[in-house]
């Protein structure tokens, strides 16, 4: 079933869309898998960086600042290739998917570190002083006073980075991970129809990212109160 859709004689083929669906869903699954594992790594590693950035000793603060700045200001794609090609040379063999998850998690951990830091810094100084005045122990100060207030700023910001991470998962196609973009390229290569698969994938990203960003905004408003 084909019909002419454009002045230039181009056509949109719905049957190509249906044929793409099995691959599409496989791609969605891999993309979401990368997103979930990448988020997990970036959230936890970011916390480690953030603690390092707040460490009392300059010997810790300095290297952590340098490393996170370096990772944050260099392209994820090049880091991906670095890990993909260099790790095997060092004798560490990971699958493309694992490498991709590690790279994306590492890259975004430098962003989440800033989120944690900003969230903790935004808690008014008086709160720390009050906790000291009440002679609360350290863990009570963190768990009962500082973190509940910091979380309001941290959670929506982390949500925004998860959305950015989603939009960066197609980079993993560069190392042939079978996520959405790579699935559409394979489909195009086998049927010579790139239009339908690529369009479907592009729209799929909007359909996931837009509601997600509305959700984050709603969360932001709710937690701000």
């Amino acid at each position, binding site marked *: 079933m084909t019909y002419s859709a*454009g002045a230039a004689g181009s056509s949109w083929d719905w049957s190509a869309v249906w044929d793409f669906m099995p691959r599409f869903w496989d791609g969605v699954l891999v993309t979401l898998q990368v997103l979930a594992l990448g988020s997990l790594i970036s959230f936890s590693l970011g916390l480690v960086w953030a603690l390092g950035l707040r460490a009392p000793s300059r010997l810790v603060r300095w290297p952590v600042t340098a490393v996170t700045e*370096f990772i944050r200001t260099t392209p*994820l794609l090049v880091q991906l290739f*670095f890990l993909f090609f260099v790790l095997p040379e*060092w004798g560490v063999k990971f699958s493309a998917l694992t490498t991709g998850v590690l790279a994306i998690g590492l890259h975004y951990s430098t962003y989440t570190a800033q989120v944690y830091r900003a969230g903790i810094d935004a808690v008014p100084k008086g709160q720390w002083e009050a906790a000291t005045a009440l002679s609360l122990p350290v863990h009570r100060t963190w768990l009962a006073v500082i973190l509940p207030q910091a979380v309001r700023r941290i959670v929506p910001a982390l949500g925004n980075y998860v959305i950015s991470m989603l939009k960066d998962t197609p*980079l993993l196609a*560069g190392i042939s991970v079978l996520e959405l973009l790579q699935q559409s390229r394979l489909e195009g290569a086998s049927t010579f129809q790139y239009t339908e698969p*690529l369009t479907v994938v*592009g729209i799929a*990203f909007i359909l996931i990212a837009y509601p997600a960003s509305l959700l984050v905004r709603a969360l932001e408003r709710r937690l701000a109160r």
Partner: protein
Amino acid sequence: MTAGLWQHWVLPGIWITVQLTVYSAALAAAVAFGIGMARTHRSRFVRFLAGFYTEVFRGTSALVLMFWLFFVLPPLVGWQLVPMWAAVLALGLSYGAYGAEIVRGALNAVAPAQREAGIALSLTPWQRMRLVLLPQAVPEMLPPFCNLLVELLKGTALVSLLGVGDVSFAAYLVRLATQDSAQIYSATLVVYFVLAFGITRGMKALERRTKANLGVTVK
């Protein structure tokens, strides 16, 4: 790594990366100001269109957009974009959408009394924008623009997947030629880091300059 590889692949690659960054940044700036100002427009319809643009281009992935412009657009419209310009278009349009949010935020952050004073002086909307709002909003935009510009620089690496000969693509070729990945990829990362450092420094200087015009000193 031999000098020949540097001279024939890596250095021209760095130059392509710089060019890509400059052209895409110019397009993104035009889009950001156009769409950002449209989002503060009086007419609801104009605001809706601008908002729609931002959500679509912020919603999709820059790399998917790039592939789409390169593979899907040609059969639809009947002409082919040179990879370099498909890349500039994709980067400019998507980072422009992010920039539009910055422009909108900075315009909304100007004290409302400033706009009212403009109306009281019976300035036209365009005069108000040009003479009152923008001079105060632009210095506020510069720090987020700086971050965005570094993101854009990082985004230019995506073009290597389309076969544009930027520094990441050069790294790939050098890797094939020398069979030594660690060296060339470390060097490439350092190149990006240095470029990003230059951008940060330049934008900081620009911020100091524009704020000095308003009589504000930056630390």
